[in-house]
């Protein structure tokens, strides 16, 4: 049985201090879509340091990578940052499960474009807060990719997006919660600062 441990995958990324936004099926599930996926799709911050950390996180003796134009996964213990740019989607299987890396979400853009409107969720048991691409962006990526399997999930995504638009998500972290009021240090310093 193929392993799929989201906690392990997210922990792996956190332990290596990788900055990323969750997209794809896991991002859609976090926003109410009932579709099932068995891999974690992420768009990393495309800085050299961050991509190096991501490559280090994915590297390992059991790591495999999907070959281009094939369904085969082959041993790939050492991941290089440049790989993330060579394929539309670089697909790996780690000890915790499958993880796909996209430098850019089709039809939307890179990390910065996603992060600006991302939803944030706290996972207390995992000890993590994660950023998830807004469902409208995930929908746009599926519409843009245009594969049959993408079209099949669109009705569920539209349904979840409609529900979120109408009532929101009570578990979404309020951006205001990420700011803190620091005590003023002088007469001109009385403006709340964002973390």
């Amino acid at each position, binding site marked *: 049985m193929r392993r799929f441990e989201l906690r392990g995958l997210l922990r792996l990324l956190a332990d290596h201090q990788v900055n990323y936004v969750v997209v794809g099926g896991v991002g859609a599930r976090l926003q109410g879509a*009932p579709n099932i996926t068995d891999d974690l799709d992420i768009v990393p911050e495309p800085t050299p340091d961050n991509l190096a950390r991501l490559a280090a996180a994915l590297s390992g003796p059991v790591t495999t990578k999907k070959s281009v134009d094939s369904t085969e996964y082959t041993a790939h213990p050492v991941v290089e940052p440049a790989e993330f740019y060579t394929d539309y989607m670089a697909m790996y299987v780690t000890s915790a499960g499958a993880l796909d890396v996209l430098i850019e979400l089709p039809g939307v853009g890179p990390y910065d474009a996603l992060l600006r409107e991302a939803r944030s*969720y706290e996972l207390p048991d995992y000890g993590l807060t994660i950023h998830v691409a807004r469902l409208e962006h995930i929908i746009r990526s599926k519409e843009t990719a245009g594969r049959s399997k993408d079209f099949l999930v669109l009705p569920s995504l539209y349904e979840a997006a409609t529900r979120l638009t109408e009532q929101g998500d009570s578990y979404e972290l309020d951006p205001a919660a990420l700011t803190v009021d620091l005590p003023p240090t002088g007469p001109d310093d009385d403006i709340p600062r964002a973390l």
Partner: protein
Amino acid sequence: MATETTAAAAVEVPAKAEERAAYYRARAAEAMARARALVGRPWTSDPGLRVQVEAILALSPQDRLRQLEEQVATLSALRPLGPAVAGR
């Protein structure tokens, strides 16, 4: 439409970053129009789907992920592993 798609695919992707971005934006807009036409507009809500969405959103985020993991495990246990899928 098939002719347009073929013609568009034959166009070489521009080398300049700005032109390339515009090219991909245009391709994305075409793809979105095709997807929406295929899925059907105006889209109408499905009560069965809505119930599932409500049930998921009633869970905490980590419970949403746990539920997904459990569903994957259940499906994986049912799926016979052949050579083509054993690696993944």
